[in-house]
């Protein structure tokens, strides 16, 4: 089962490895990212960040969707991590009912782009295209929320989107 779909540009790191893994009693992490799937060095560093007793597989977004359709995935407690909201929309659309939590952790702070970004929370800045993707994500999963770790403040994506429109930025 997919316990959580998470957008996190850092993929697996302290927040995921130390807190969510325990909170959700995960047995596996699926990275759904086209670049990472082709990058052996990145696979190695991700494996290093993995907590004990948790399995890892790094797939392209399409590859991850097909892996998650495997009936054996039902027996595991999985977190699927994408780097962008747009990729998360692809996963969410493929599994529109069965994902327990849809969560955005860290976004938009590492990528170098000249595009204008809007601050959604302290840890998430989104381009206009990503905000549009977030609207699509909220359409599929209305309970989508921003949260770094389980102890941190939770912001519903729907209300963050409302304040974006109020600001007249879109």
């Amino acid at each position, binding site marked *: 089962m997919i316990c959580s779909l998470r957008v996190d540009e850092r993929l697996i790191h302290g927040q995921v490895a*130390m807190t969510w893994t325990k909170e959700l009693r995960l047995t596996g992490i699926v990275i759904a990212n086209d670049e990472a799937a082709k990058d052996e060095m990145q696979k190695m560093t991700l494996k290093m960040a993995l907590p004990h007793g948790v399995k890892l597989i790094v797939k392209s977004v399409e590859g991850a969707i097909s892996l998650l359709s495997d009936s054996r995935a039902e027996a595991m407690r999985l977190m699927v991590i994408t780097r962008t909201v747009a990729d998360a929309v692809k996963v969410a659309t493929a599994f529109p009912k069965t994902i327990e939590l849809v969560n955005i952790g860290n976004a938009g702070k590492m990528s170098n782009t000249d595009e204008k970004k809007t601050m959604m929370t302290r840890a998430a800045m989104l381009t206009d295209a990503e905000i549009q993707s977030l609207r699509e994500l909220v359409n599929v999963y209305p309970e989508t929320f921003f949260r770094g770790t389980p102890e*941190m403040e939770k912001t519903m994506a729907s209300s963050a989107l409302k304040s974006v429109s109020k600001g007249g930025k879109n």
Partner: protein
Amino acid sequence: MRQIIIASHGKLAEGVENTLQLFTGNLTGVSFLSAYTEDGVQLDDQIEALMKTFDQDGALFFTDIKGGSVTQAVVRHVANLANVYVIAGFNFAMILEALMSTVALSETFAQKLAVSGREGIELIEVKQDASEQEDTFFE
């Protein structure tokens, strides 16, 4: 409640506090002791002030280096107290593990933290074929 104290020569402890805030919003029951940073502030007084917060749930000190004067001073003050432990030579992983845990303080628990802290230190070797293939993932 159990108290956790991070103690260092200089501002290492403050740096740990700053980093911990990125990992966990809740630092209740955690104190930071930066020794020798202010003129006129005595390490003994800093330790004694912290000890006033101790109750029956106990306390766990993480000190920066075994044999250092901070560790020595802490040990001198708490050596005879029940359910108070000192781990010398902390690393970030063991502190985080202690904070995340809901287990009550005990010698066994402190020993376990010392072991997992040590296990967290390793020379990284570059390996290929790091991630699982589908069949091993589902095993």
